């Protein structure tokens, strides 16, 4: 127990406090930090032209990617539950992409969605649709990342599957006796029974979305490299046109490419507040619609 307390202090408690302190300083790692009051925050809220695009991009993920992922995982799990043969094989197939290391998965998707030579646009071309530029188009870059994340839905899917199997049979039976059709059974039996798992998937998904970094970093640097063979490495994050400049990506850029450590710390404090608040909101609101078996005694 006590080594953990030490570790917790050194690797979590101390940095958490220091982040707040550093956010009020100018610090570039070479010279000692210099107290500059709220200047970082002022710059963040009023002058930084990249901060709002990055906030928007990250919130886009929370608002669009997370619900899609939860619904998709639920849909795949329902399909699997229905299958009578080869459940194991199908389950493995749906789970495998979740195992692919993010860098590898992203590389694969950048290639498959390559506008000129990739198979996806090739297939779309066959049916007469001109495919988008995917990772190289500001409006399609985030959907491309969403597709990539949907492909790796395996973990969430397995959790849903386990929950669906656990829904008590007798609930369906009595619902059927009361004349509930398939849709009503889904709405009034399945959904309430697994609502804690839906909440869990939403919280985990949101936490993931707030942290999304690797897919954006790899996707943008490679798409930028393909777009111009010169590929200015200092300016490729967020490519194209800052559309994949998510909040953690900007934080990385400020802190570890430009070494504006104080400013990055200020961004981290904001991230701390927002992620804490979002998690709280989800957990609070859940009381209204999450049903725990045996609760309310």
């Amino acid at each position: 127990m006590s080594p953990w307390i030490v570790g917790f202090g050194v690797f979590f408690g101390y940095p958490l406090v220091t982040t707040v302190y550093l956010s009020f300083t100018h610090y570039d790692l070479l010279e000692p930090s210099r107290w500059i009051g709220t200047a970082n925050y002022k710059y963040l809220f009023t002058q930084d032209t990249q901060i709002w695009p990055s906030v928007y991009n990250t919130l886009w993920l929370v608002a669009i990617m997370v619900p899609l992922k939860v619904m998709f995982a639920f849909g795949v799990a329902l399909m699997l539950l229905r299958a009578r043969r080869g459940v194991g094989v199908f389950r493995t197939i749906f789970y495998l992409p979740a195992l692919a290391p993010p860098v590898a998965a992203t590389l694969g998707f950048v290639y498959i969605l390559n506008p000129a030579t990739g198979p996806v646009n090739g297939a779309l071309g066959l049916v007469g649709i001109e495919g988008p530029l995917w990772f190289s188009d500001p409006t399609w870059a985030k959907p491309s990342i969403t597709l990539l994340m949907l492909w790796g839905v395996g973990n969430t899917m397995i959790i849903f599957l386990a929950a669906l199997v656990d829904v008590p049979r007798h609930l369906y039976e009595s619902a059927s006796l009361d004349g509930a059709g398939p849709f009503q059974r889904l709405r009034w039996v399945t959904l309430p029974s697994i609502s804690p798992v839906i909440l869990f998937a939403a919280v985990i998904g949101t936490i993931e979305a707030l942290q999304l970094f690797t897919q954006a970093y790899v996707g943008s640097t490679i798409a930028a490299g393909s777009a111009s063979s010169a590929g200015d490495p200092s300016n490729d994050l967020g490519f194209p046109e800052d559309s994949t400049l998510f909040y953690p990506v900007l934080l990385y850029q400020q802190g570890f490419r430009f070494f504006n450590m104080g400013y990055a710390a200020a961004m981290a404090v904001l991230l701390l507040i927002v992620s804490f608040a979002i998690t709280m909101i989800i957990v609070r609101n859940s009381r209204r619609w999450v049903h725990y078996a045996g609760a309310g005694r």
Partner: protein
Amino acid sequence: MAATETAATLAPTPPRRRVVPAAVRRRRFLVGVAEHSLLIVAAIAFLAPFVFMALTSLMTTDQALSPKLWPEPFRWSNYTNVFEQAPLLRYALNTLIYSSLATLGMLVSSIPVAYALAILRWRGRDLVFLLVLVAMMLPPQVTIVPLYVLWAKLNLVGTLAPLIVPNWFGDAFSIFLLRQFFLTIPQPYIDSARVDGCGEFRIMTTVVLRLAKPAIAAVALFMFLLTFSDFFGPLLYAGDEQSNWTLSLGLAQFRVLHQVQWNLTMAATIIVILPVVVLFFFAQKAFVEGVTLTGVKE
């Protein structure tokens, strides 16, 4: 649409023995085919990216830049060529060092904490558990700046130490998962061990470890996979020191260095994915049980 359809099977299937009218049976069969065809289509879509990656990895450089899908001829030499283009073995060794030491450290440090949180009763336990939850949920970026400064001051940026050492002091997610599992161990087992005069340490190393084997296997697998795939950590701490790059980092840079050689890039990608897939097939049961465990509510 799909939701309505799928919900139908959630209803109990009638016993087989009952005689079903032919029309109903035919309809049921067609519905079955329809369901499975949806599954089959979805399965093909999930597999397709792997297939395209593998096919491209066997093409010549020119073919990989054309819309062709089938390699002609198969260039197996891409897979040996890749190792000449980038020190993949060096990266693999670094990755293995990082993953195995981090996993080992996590187990040694997290099991006792989880034990204390699940089995022992002491003041402040709930507070500590809350801290574990907070540490688990907050994005790592929140503490990254001071941590980087700390490692820079210790002159350890450029090595793998900043990635490995923190795991020897416990990992919040693993602690959480182990605690959830330890809670399911029936109290009488532990009480009877106490009556027999076992110390807490012996109870932990014998009774609990033996009963919690699946959970420990799952947590170790997750940690290994997480560190194997980690990109942010190696980028941050080992980015400037190529001799300490991991596979993920080397793979991300590979494409930058070999601009147009998609065939080699895909070969390298396959090489990075393959160990994980092999690991999965060896430990499938532990994986699935472990993932399920993450979803277990209190």
